[in-house]
Every structure is written in C-alpha cells, then in structure tokens.
C-alpha cells in the first residue's frame, strides 16, 4: 500500500498526526531514510512497463494562434451545420459564461488571464480584464458581477461590464479552499436559483486515498458563505450544468490514468439526491474496482454514472442544448467538449460529442458532433468548453489555439 500524498492538505494532516503521536514516535524513530519522494502527480499509479510507453501530458496551451493560422476549415460538423472562427487571440481560452447583456467572459488555467469578448458596432473585440490570477479557470455571472474561481479562492468583480477597460479590484468571496495544484483548477456554475456557486475540488493526484475535502463537488451559499458537499467520490469534474427542466445537476468526470488504453472511461453523471458517492478512488466508471484501492470494496457500494463517455477522452465542459436554432432532435441534448487524451497510445477525443436523452433522462445516443482538431497524431487545438448562445448557436473554446469557434445551423 503506497500513500501517494503529494499534496499540502494531506501533508498537513500527516504532520498533525505526527505531532499528536510525537511522544510515542520520537523515542523509537529510526534514523530517517533518504526521503522517499513522490512522483509528479500525473505519473502516480504508473507501472514500470507503462513508463516505457513514454506517455506524458501534453504541453499546456500558452499562446494564441494568429487568426489567419487557425485551420477552422478542418473542423467537421454534421450536414446543415457550419463551424466558423468567432474570436481569437486569447491564450489558453477555457471556461465560458455570458452576461445577459451579451459579454462573454472566458477563464484560463495557465496564463492567469480572464478575457471579455464584446460586440460593438458589429465588431467583436477581445479584452484582457484580469492578469496574474492563479488558475482562474472558473467563471460565473450574477447581478452584474463576474465571479472567478481561482485555484484556492473565489473572487468577484462588481459592475464589471461598465468597467471592462479598467476593472475594479476584485472582492474576495471565499478563500479557504485547498491549495493543491493537481486538479485544483475549478469549473464553476451558478445554480438556477442564483443562490449557489457549484464547483469541484478535484483529487490531488492521479489515484490516491484523498482527504475528505477532495474529490468532491461542492456548492457555496452566496448569502451565508457556507460551503457544503453536493457529491463525493468524484475524481475531477471540469464540466457541469443543470438540466433545463428538472434542474438536477449533471456533470462530467475524468477517469484515472495508468490502467490501460481502454479503461477506465470518463463518465457523465446525474445528481438525483443528496449524499451521492460516485466511487473514487475505490471504483471507477461504476463497475471497475481499482486494482490497488478497490481491494475489499464493491462497486455496488457506490452510485453509477449515466454514461461511459470514452477512455482518456478528457471530458471537460458540458452544457444542455436549450436553444431553438438546431433541429428539434437536439432539444435538451448534452454537448461535451473532449479535450483529448495523453495517457493512451492512440490519441482519442479532441472533439465535441452530443448525448441525447429520453424523457426520463436515460441516454439514448452518443455521437461525435464536431471533430477535426486532430489529424493523425498531430493536434492543432483542444476543445475545452461549450456555451449556448441566445440565438441558439453554440460556442466552443479551444485552449491550444486560444480561440472560440461558433457552430450554427441553417435550414
């Protein structure tokens, strides 16, 4: 049994435990062996054989391709649909949210920027409204304020749209979140009633027995500032949305690495009640016991996903289709941005998939909706989030091209 404690929270826990036991331990402690270090979080759980595969995470998207270099014509969409470049020049553009007035806000993981895309006199303009934030991946909008989820805190820019060229200093809303870098960037979503911010606290490693504070989806009550669990046993969700009719929370989850090319799947989940536990680190995809941590456990202890999306696809941003522009069969479908695999010998994902549900919420279909970010083994972009526009078209952010594409349909 290895304890892969790479993260500060558990180190603190271990320290506390060590202090509590110090009277006992100090007397008998043998000379400390050379510190046995921890592999980088992405390599935890990797076997010696797997190390020989030389699979490592892709370099993060750090720049934006010039508009003229973005091969939008490579994007493939179903007949009747059109893909076009909507905005560019936004290094690492990821999560999106739009204000009622139409300003699109875009968060990032690596440069620490937040962007605003505004349309004025028929021209679209990108403004960088924040720099130097720490992994400002999550964005939400309420009552004129932009909420940004950084790695370990939630901040708020009031009256932001009147001050896009000179944003106010942010107000700190909540700053007591864990500081672990691994899976520490947040996806954030405002609840339909506007009272809660939902976001995830991912597991601080690939596979580990996480502290109870981690591998959860939580919500922050904006009136009381109380943080509470929504679901547990969630390795890392980087996409969530509320069903337009039932208002239930649905979310994507990224499965662990280093099992094999085809297992486990990333998954789609539906939260139907309080206290659901989706199994991490013991059980993956609802039916696969972890080789190491699943010993003595059963997948029947845990709640199941509604869909196995695909292995290693990196299912990130997801939204229900609530518009009227697409054909009727798309109503209340789910679109999911698949960022694309690194921990697989043949790359997979790098597309946007469509998931259709029946009236009861059972999945009836999953198919690729937008593809073309990858040719052979080489990708030029990676979809990170999807967003539904008022006119019924859909935006797709790309954090490698640093751009946003628009998918529209005409009869």
């Amino acid at each position: 049994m290895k304890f892969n404690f790479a993260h500060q929270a558990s180190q603190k826990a271990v320290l506390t435990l060590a202090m509590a036991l110090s009277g006992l331990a100090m007397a008998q402690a043998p000379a400390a062996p050379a510190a046995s270090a921890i592999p980088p979080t992405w390599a935890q759980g990797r076997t010696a054989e797997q190390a020989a595969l030389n699979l490592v995470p892709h370099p993060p998207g750090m720049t934006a391709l010039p508009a003229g270099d973005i091969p939008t014509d490579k994007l493939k969409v179903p007949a009747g649909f059109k893909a076009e470049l909507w905005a560019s020049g936004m290094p690492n553009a990821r999560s999106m949210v739009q204000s009622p007035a139409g300003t699109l806000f875009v968060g990032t993981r690596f440069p620490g920027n937040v962007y605003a895309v505004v349309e004025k006199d028929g021209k679209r303009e990108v403004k960088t409204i924040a720099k130097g934030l720490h992994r400002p991946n999550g964005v939400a909008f309420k009552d004129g304020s932009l909420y940004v989820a950084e790695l370990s805190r939630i901040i708020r820019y009031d009256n932001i749209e009147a001050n896009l060229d000179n944003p106010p200093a942010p107000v700190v809303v909540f700053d007591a979140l864990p500081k672990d870098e691994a899976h520490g960037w947040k996806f954030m979503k405002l609840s339909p009633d506007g009272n809660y911010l939902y976001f995830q606290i991912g597991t601080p490693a690939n596979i580990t027995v996480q502290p109870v504070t981690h591998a959860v989806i939580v919500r922050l009550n904006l009136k009381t500032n109380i943080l509470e669990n929504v679901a547990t046993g969630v390795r890392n969700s980087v996409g969530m949305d509320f069903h337009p009719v039932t208002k239930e929370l649905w979310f994507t989850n990224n499965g662990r690495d280093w099992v094999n090319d085809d297992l486990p799947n990333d998954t789609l989940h539906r939260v139907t009640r309080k206290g659901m536990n989706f199994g991490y680190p013991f059980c993956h995809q609802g039916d696969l016991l972890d080789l190491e941590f699943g010993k003595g456990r059963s997948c029947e202890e845990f709640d199941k996903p509604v869909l196995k999306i695909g292995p290693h696809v990196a299912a990130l941003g997801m939204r229900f289709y609530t518009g009227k522009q697409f054909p009727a069969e798309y109503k209340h479908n789910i679109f999911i941005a698949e960022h694309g695999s690194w921990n697989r010998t043949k790359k997979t994902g790098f597309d946007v998939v469509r998931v259709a549900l029946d009236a009861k919420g059972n999945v009836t279909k999953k198919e690729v909706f937008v593809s073309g970010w990858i040719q052979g083994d080489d990708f030029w972009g990676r979809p990170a989030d999807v967003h539904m526009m008022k006119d019924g078209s859909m935006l797709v952010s790309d954090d490698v091209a640093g751009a946003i594409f628009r998918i529209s349909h005409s009869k």
Partner: protein
Amino acid sequence: MSVRISKAIQGMAFFIASLHADQVMAAPDAVAGKAKAQVCAACHGETGVSALPGFPHLAAQPQLSIFYQLLQFRDQRRKGGGMEAIAATLSEQDMRDIAAHYASMPAPAPVAGGQPEKIARGQQIAQQQYCSSCHGAQLQGQKHVPRLSGQSSEYFVAQLRNLRSGARADMDGTMASAARSLTDEEIEAMAAYARSLP
C-alpha cells in the same frame, strides 16, 4: 553584468526594429533564429554553451522549453538575468525561431571530473525524486520540459533553490512540490550529476 545586459537590450531593440512584424506565424525557423539570437550570445554563448558561470546553456534544449520560458519572462511570470526586458522586445515568432536555433545546436559537453561520489549521490537523489518522469531518462528534456544534462551547475542550483523558496514559480506546481523537501546538499549533488550527463 548589468552593463552587459543593457548592451544586449540595446542591440536587440536595434535589431528588432529592422525586422518586419509577421502577421502570419510561420513554423519555427532555426536559420532565422540564428540571426535573431545574436544578442543572446553575449550571455548564453554563440552556440548556446555559456562561458559565464550561472548562465544556462541553451544548446540542445527542447524548442518548446525555450519558447515557453521566453513567454514567461515576457509576461513577468518568471524573472531574472534581465530576461524580462529582453523577452519584451521579442515577437512570439522571434521566440520560436530563437528556440529552434538553440534546439538544433549540439549539446554541451558533459563535465564529470573528480567527484564520482557526489555524482553518484546526485543520481540516487534524482531517481528518488522521479526527475526522469518529466525530464527524460537521460534528463535530456522533452516537449516543454527543459534539458538538465550538461547544464551549468551554478544555474541548476540557483533555479532549484528559487523553485524551493517560491521565488521562481513553475508552470503547474510540479517543481515546487518536488523541490520543497530538498536540502542544499542534495541540490548540489543533483547539479553535479546533471552536468555529468551527455
């Protein structure tokens, strides 16, 4: 040193002024990069092997690792050696080309003389620390992760100390986590080991 850097900045400003700004980004061009890298040579050497203690060798670094560090200097997310000012004068195409030039240069010669025990100790610690997971089996670097083999020991030690203290922020926290528990002696031993690798 400050004189040298300010000269470098002047030279670069003059040089860049004579270039056309490319709107369309071309593939990284090592030949163009060689011309653009003239100003870098003052500190980093004509072939990317620095003669000055404490300055990093750039020869044979992965192209993306040089490019990403230049971006971080430009955005002032990394600071040091006057590089923020120099990077601020470069377009992203300049950065890609310069990076391609140095990536194409032969690796610095390994230096192994006279300290086999220290090198062995460094190798042991590097293995315990899983350095090769990201930096490659021979610490030769890959993708955006820098080459450590043959690197200047002074530079190696300074950077690991900076990562340990937080003075240098790394891209995703991996190095801050790795460096947190290292002693000076361990860092110095790893530096000797890295420098001894071809």
